[in-house]
């Protein structure tokens, strides 16, 4: 095992930018916004050295438009933003879903709504990441909980975008973005870099062919195949259709290619789950507190465990059901008023559930989590 780098302190945002370059990003288009700006600044400095191009666009709509354009001609493309900018990007996230153009968007979440609290953390864009763009679609969203994981998961975000030809959103929060911690990644921890599946058969190219893999093969626009890309609902050849059977096939394909591949896409970590009777489900920086809460609870003789979701979308309902159903209690702390909690509550059916809201624009104290678990167990006569 060779060490890639000496241990050093690194910020989450920088790890994200480094991950993007490692993944092979050659185009970045962005617009400055706290707390994500360090990503753009790093890309501006490093992308030219890595053979890529950085553009500061006129706004976030232009940013996402430009990265989709660059991806259409075959480049791995990336942007980074926060709340207000993420709102502006929504229409074109749907474009990338519809036209199946891989892009990666880092949204370093800050507290909202509106301008909100630009420098303070939140996880208030979780539902926006899922449903922010109009129309039925699926989406992939990842929420890393450490600096190192941000690096690794950014690489994976590009891999997933390429593999499934879809936008991937990295949902960091301000705490993860600005956290500085040890960053020690060995070469064998770095995921293999994936490119979207290409075909060389220009003459017979069917750009949106329905195949069992559900993901059409790619020829970059401008490489001899001369085809059409549109955000209109299209047939296999890429042209507008309103024929009901074609429309239905198309919509199901872009949905199913993600929803039916959860096993491949979804990642999570189990902590103290073997004999757990109480489960905390968490993600992002809050999962750091949740880990400590589990240890606290164990010290008080409560058999607690943690499911830490790394992939938020598609939502891993099977996992949540299997691991949580029938437990004494499931607690979900979130830095919002209960967003992913809705999904968890739905998945675990009639298992006792409590959504612990964090609206203070700050991390949730492990003690608050542990105390809540104990008081809820007492209420239920479980301790």
């Amino acid at each position: 095992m060779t060490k890639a780098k000496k241990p050093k302190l690194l910020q989450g945002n920088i790890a994200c930018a480094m991950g993007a370059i490692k993944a092979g990003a050659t185009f970045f288009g962005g617009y400055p916004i706290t707390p994500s700006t360090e990503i753009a600044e790093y890309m501006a400095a490093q992308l030219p050295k890595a053979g890529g191009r950085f553009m500061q666009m006129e706004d976030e709509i232009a940013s996402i438009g430009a990265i989709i354009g660059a991806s259409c001609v075959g480049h791995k493309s990336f942007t980074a933003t926060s709340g207000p900018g993420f709102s502006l990007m929504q229409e074109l996230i749907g474009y990338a879903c519809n036209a199946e153009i891989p892009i990666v968007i880092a949204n370093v979440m800050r507290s909202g709504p509106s301008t909100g609290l630009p420098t303070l953390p939140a996880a208030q864009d979780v539902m926006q990441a899922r449903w922010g763009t109009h129309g039925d679609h699926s989406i992939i969203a990842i929420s890393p909980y450490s600096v190192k994981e941000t690096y690794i998961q950014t690489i994976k975000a590009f891999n997933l975008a390429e593999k499934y030809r879809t936008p991937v959103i990295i949902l960091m929060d301000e705490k993860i973005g600005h956290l500085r911690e040890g960053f020690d990644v060995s070469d064998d921890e770095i995921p293999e870099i994936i490119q979207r599946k290409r075909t060389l058969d220009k003459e017979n190219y069917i750009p949106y062919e329905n195949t069992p893999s559900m993901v059409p093969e790619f020829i970059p626009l401008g490489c001899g195949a001369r085809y059409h890309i549109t955000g209109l609902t299209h047939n296999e050849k890429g042209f507008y259709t309103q024929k009901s059977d074609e429309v239905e096939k198309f919509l199901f394909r872009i949905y199913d290619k993600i929803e039916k591949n959860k096993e491949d896409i979804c990642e999570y970590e189990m902590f103290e789950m073997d004999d757990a009777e109480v489960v905390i489900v968490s993600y992002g920086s809050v999962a750091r507190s949740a880990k400590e809460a589990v240890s606290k609870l164990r010290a008080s003789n409560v058999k607690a465990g943690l499911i830490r979701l790394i992939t938020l979308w598609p939502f891993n309902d099977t996992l949540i059901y299997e691991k949580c159903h029938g437990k004494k209690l499931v607690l979900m702390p979130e830095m919002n008023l209960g967003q992913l909690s809705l999904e968890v509550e739905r998945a675990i059916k009639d298992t006792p559930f409590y959504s612990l809201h964090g609206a203070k624009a700050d991390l949730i104290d492990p003690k608050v989590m542990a105390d809540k678990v104990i008081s809820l167990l007492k209420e239920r006569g479980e301790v």
Partner: protein
Amino acid sequence: MQTAYKKYFRDNLPHIWCPGCGNGIVMGAFARAIEMLDYDKDEVLVVSGIGCSSRITGYLDFNTLHTAHGRALAFATGAKVAEPRLKTFVIMGDGDAAAIGGNHFIHACRRNIDITTIIINNNIYGMTGGQFSPLTPKGRKATTAPYGNIDRSFDIVDLSKGAGATYIARGDVFHAFRLSYLIAEAARHKGFSVVEAVSTCPISYGRHNKFKGAADMVNYLKKRTIALNRASRMNPEALEGKIITGIFYESEDEEYCDAFERLEASVKKGARK
């Protein structure tokens, strides 16, 4: 002549346009311009927004990218910066370019990126059925200006000039061959070039504004257009209500992708030191 540029079409007609619409004439002019330029079809990228005019990309046999309303230039900028070898054209409606996409438009002008932009100005939002656009003249009627439009309109030539475009021309669909020439010249120009193609929308504009039909609108263009060199010898009163056509501006400045290359060379040099 017809068959000479047939090769630039995908053979998926009929098109969606109303009878007498100017969009087809601009599309024909564009195909002829490519013929004049003798570009390899594989190297041509045509990007459009959303609107009647933007449907052109569906019919042309190039690499075509039909984007979102107003965003064609954002997509095209990313594609061009990533792959500067592509001869990149953007085709947009007046609403697309000057309303919802106005910000992208002025910034593309400012960057001087080597994209040839054709704005099909039919003075109206055609696709949505005739609402006024930033190019609808004051006083004209639209479905959202039933008592006459009170908004002032843009002048695309002045707007482009102010924003920094380095080639600016205006043509019209009555002078279709002249329009081809202007498009070809714009493509030959290195930098951001704008061609305003004054067009006709008999259905969503003409009907609300006392035009008798498609032919009447084209005749209007025939009567109202005047070449720049002639116009420059006329006094302002005589030019009242005229549509001046020609090449308004051409200048040289560093092209955006060239600037990238320069930057990259200096970064590499710095790294070697």
